[in-house]
């Protein structure tokens, strides 16, 4: 048996969930139809959620659980100063303070957990508003087209014309910095990105035969939207929800770095900011770096879970 072939690579499933079949080389040689069909059958089985997905869900569960029940769990008070006489804070991680303390001897573990309450709330409200209003507007625009579409799309484009964060900066600079205003501001900013995708998804489904079929059966528009379109649009949207939440949480962190986040209480951004100065970073890196890791893992988990959901439900009509 001799193998005088081009030594390239075969692609089964890549991390973004794309499925390709047959042999694909940098040499660009693809196999015949027979093997393409054979591989397509096999590739379908690879479309599971996967171990990574469940690990991500587990982490998210821990974070959400801790954040939700923080006041009743045995965490130290996030605002108290636990100064040990004779030693100047900040204190490195130890048995007493698992994440260490910041320069004012506040326990970082509890600040991270209580900060999660704020950051996650902001994330949830932001993406919730985005899905609700943006989703609604997007579906209206995508389904009814015409005048609706033109107006709504223009609104979307206006909001999307602002570079990231800039509009958030403007609004939060002008208003009081409470949890409510920050959440709502980010919520308003989520409407356009979510709405745009909702619209695109709706358009792609509205053209399909099952909608046409429902119409010819005499179904009212509202019925079509609710029974036929919504379930189909919701699936990519829920994957988007997880991704969007990650973006909102990061946005809050960014705002905190500009001094524009919630004034009262810790948030992830503020906790990280506390330790970001050069001197603190050098002497006590844990103040910034541990919360950064927590934030990073959460964002990673949200991104990953969202991505896996998307590829799991992404039923390709034609095997590549």
């Amino acid at each position, binding site marked *: 048996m*001799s193998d005088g*072939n081009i030594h390239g690579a075969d692609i089964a499933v890549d991390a973004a969930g794309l499925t390709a079949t047959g042999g694909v080389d940098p*040499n660009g040689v693809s196999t015949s139809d027979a093997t393409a069909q054979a591989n397509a059958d096999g590739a379908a089985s690879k479309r599971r959620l996967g171990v990574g997905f469940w690990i991500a869900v587990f982490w998210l569960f821990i974070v959400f659980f801790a954040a939700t029940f923080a006041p009743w769990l045995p965490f130290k008070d996030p605002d108290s100063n636990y100064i040990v006489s004779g030693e100047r804070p900040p204190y490195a991680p130890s048995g007493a303070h698992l994440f260490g303390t910041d320069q004012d001897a506040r326990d970082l573990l509890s600040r991270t957990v209580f900060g999660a309450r704020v950051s996650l709330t902001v994330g949830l409200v932001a993406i919730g508003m985005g899905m609700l209003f943006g989703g609604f507007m997007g579906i209206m625009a995508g389904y009814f087209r015409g005048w609706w579409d033109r107006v709504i799309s223009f609104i979307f484009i206006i909001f999307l014309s602002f570079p990231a964060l800039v509009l958030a900066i403007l609004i939060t600079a002008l208003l009081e910095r409470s949890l409510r205003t920050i959440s709502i501001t980010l919520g308003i900013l989520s409407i356009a990105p979510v709405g745009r995708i909702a619209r695109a998804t709706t358009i792609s489904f509205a053209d399909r035969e099952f909608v046409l079929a429902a119409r010819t059966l005499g179904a009212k528009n509202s019925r079509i939207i609710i029974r036929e379109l919504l379930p189909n649009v919701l699936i990519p949207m829920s994957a988007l929800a997880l991704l969007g939440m990650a973006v909102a949480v990061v946005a809050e962190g960014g705002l905190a770095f500009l001094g524009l986040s919630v004034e009262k209480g810790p948030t992830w951004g503020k906790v990280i900011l506390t330790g970001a100065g050069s001197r603190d970073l050098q002497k006590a890196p844990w103040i910034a770096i541990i919360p950064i890791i927590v934030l990073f893992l959460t964002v990673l988990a949200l991104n990953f879970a969202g991505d896996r959901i998307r590829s799991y439900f992404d039923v390709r009509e034609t095997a590549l």
Partner: protein
Amino acid sequence: MNKNDHIQTDRRMESGAPLLELVDLKTHFKTERGLVRAVDGVTLSLKRGESLGVVGESGSGKTVLARSIMGLLPSTAVKHGSVKFAGQDILGFSAKQMRHLWGAEMSMVFQNPLNSLNPLMKIGKQITEPLKLHLGMDKATATATALQLLRDVRIPEPERRLNQLPHELSGGMRQRVMIAIALACGPTLLFADEPTTALDVTVQAQILDLIGEQRRDRNMSVILVTHDLGVVAGHTDQIAVMYGGKLVEHAPTKTLFANMKMPYTKSLMRSIPKLSDPSHTRLATIPGRPPDLVNPPLGCNFAPRCMYALPKCHVEEPPLTPTADPKHVYACWYPVGSPEFEKRDAELQATGYMPEDFSAVS
């Protein structure tokens, strides 16, 4: 290997040995469903300057055969047997070794010229690329050669074409450019994979004539892969008919058309609509679908679809047997002309089915 090996090829040829020799070539693909036997034992040989037509339906393995010989297969492919080119066994060559042959000694013209030419690269550059690569030409010489090649393939206004992009040319012209590219370094073996399928009928003839002309001028061997028996009729010296990855009939062209043995070949022949047929003649088709190449049926691959099949056909695979002419081989238990065939043929005609009208079979 470099350009001087080209000359070696010629020297080897003088001894009269065939340019290309395939012995029991098999190409299998590893897939999740199993091993796909795309080419399952093909033996042929081709002399310098000769033209071979490889005919079959899609899925018959004809394209894989061509690419197997050339070595342009993905890494899921596993080859067996031997492929001797100019006396050298190239089956086991790595891509690196084959690269010296590609474009220089053997080249391929592909089916769809719109997709087969780089849409963002000027025509001239696509032609001069192999010239610079294999023959070491400088830009001026290469451009002049490219110009001459365009003239050889009869493209009008060749100077203008050099700077144009593929989408600015018509389908027929693009195919001519593909041929020019393939001929650029003067290969000894040219593969043409369905070169006319994507073209208008009038242009088809021109392209085939062009290939034939170049073959004669350059003493080049040609392997013409197609599903269309009509295409190979006037342009080949020998024809190999493939079905289900196997060679089912192989003969010099004239012999094949005069004396086809395999019922499959006959039905291919009949499925070509003829201008001389009266209007509204039913289009004769071969019912059924090509065999599953992972689990081929027992016996003859064509038996499930063959109107002349008898029990033995479903159980034992017919070997390739020669006729009186040793160059004509076929694989069938009850070929055309045999008593069983004639009996069945009579039966079919008696029940009102014209031999031309296979589509009426349920």
